[in-house]
């Protein structure tokens, strides 16, 4: 009879095997999927620092900060996650996302050896928190990056971080590995339905795309397929008025949603 640890490891392996197929599906808007999971991961990490901002507030913090201004402690966490999930995994790229961790430690983390992807990720959490106990966000970003890299993906997919609890991060060795195996199953449980949902929405958006006659509409559609949320002003290749009209039209067509529920400072996304 297999023990808890064996069962958890087996289930995590099954979840990852399924996730690898989901990730490779042609219809999936991968970059958008990663950004939206990054938003969930950021919410988890922000809560670990004792703050309570929800996903809407985090989105606002990032979208309403002018260049050169500071998105604040919680907005910064989302920026870190978007940075990590938006660029191919590399020492330099991740180094910028986790700027409290030395570059050589990032390199060591990425080269960590271990029998399975999840065990490597668990080791990374342990190593990072050993040196800097309050760097939970950085530890989770690096752990998910290592997990993704071990699965042969070019980009970091927020996964473990969707489900690890603050008390899990205080565990070490076998107990931490067990928590990570369970978190992979729970994380995949969020990532897989989200992938299905976003794939359906992407198909819908692509279906209405030929009916859009505004200049720049094709570029806008591509952006919506790759970003969690966009203010109309982000469609800076169109006039402000045209961008707003296009967003409204896409909402009317049921291809995108307005995400804030506000009348002004609106954000749109799939």
């Amino acid at each position: 009879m297999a023990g808890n640890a064996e069962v958890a490891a087996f289930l995590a392996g099954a979840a990852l095997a399924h996730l690898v197929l989901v990730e490779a599906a042609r219809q999936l808007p991968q970059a958008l999927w990663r950004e939206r999971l990054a938003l969930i991961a950021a919410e988890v990490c922000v809560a670990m620092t004792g703050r309570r901002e929800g996903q809407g507030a985090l989105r606002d913090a990032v979208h309403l900060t002018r260049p050169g201004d500071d998105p604040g402690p919680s907005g910064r966490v989302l920026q870190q996650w978007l940075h990590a999930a938006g660029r191919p995994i590399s020492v330099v790229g991740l180094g910028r996302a986790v700027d409290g961790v030395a570059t050589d430690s990032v390199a060591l983390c990425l080269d960590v050896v271990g029998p399975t992807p999840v065990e490597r990720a668990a080791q990374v959490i342990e190593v990072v928190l050993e040196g800097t106990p309050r760097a939970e966000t950085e530890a989770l970003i690096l752990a998910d990056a290592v997990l993704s890299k071990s699965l042969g993906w070019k980009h970091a997919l927020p996964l473990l971080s969707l489900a690890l609890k603050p008390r899990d991060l205080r565990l070490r060795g076998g107990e931490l590995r067990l928590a990570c195996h369970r978190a992979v199953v729970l994380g995949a449980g969020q990532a897989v339905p989200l992938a299905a949902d976003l794939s359906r929405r992407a198909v819908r958006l692509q279906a209405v795309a030929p009916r859009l006659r505004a200049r720049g509409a094709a570029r806008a559609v591509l952006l919506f397929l790759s970003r969690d949320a966009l203010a109309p002003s982000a469609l800076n290749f169109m006039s402000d008025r045209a961008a707003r009209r296009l967003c409204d039209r896409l909402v009317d067509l049921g291809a995108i949603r307005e995400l804030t529920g506000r009348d002004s400072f609106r954000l749109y996304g799939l």
Partner: protein
Amino acid sequence: MKKAGTETALDHELADLPPDLRWREWMRRIEAVLFASAAPVARDDLARVVGPGVSVDLLIEDLMVDLAGRPYQVARVGAGWVLRTLPAYAPVIRAAADIGGQVLNLSEFDLAVLAAIAYHQPISRDGLKEIFGREISRDMIGRLAERDLIGTGPREPRRGAPYTFVTTEIFLAAFGMQSLRDLPDPELLLDSGMTHT
């Protein structure tokens, strides 16, 4: 300030020194930069005075060991480091001169507003008005911003898009904190009767 042109003359590699002396010189450079700066210095800036690819973190670690027994130490602040006297020497420094007061020179109410910003950031002047029950003047915000204790955060999503304010790394350094998580727990403050409600 040196001109940009003279920076290229800085010998990073120190190839003519034996390895141990080279390491020592890099440590001294980092100590000199930290000594000269009132604000925390980021890793990238420190990396500019040592050999390419040399670990700033290891140099700082050795410097910390080196400074053991001195009345000051290297402290981590946010993503950088700062040289700071040991807390045990605070009364001594105060006895000699009121240096702490001179650095900030803020009224009690200024400090209360600063604390409110620290706990509730990002927060706008309207948000502060709600907390204090009175208008928070632009002058007061200006005094805090002038000292680099606060900066501008995201705009609020409503009419006029007012700015919010957030604390800076200099704020952390000034109050001896490594991150905002070092802020005292407000509930504990209430329990110990340190705040009036």
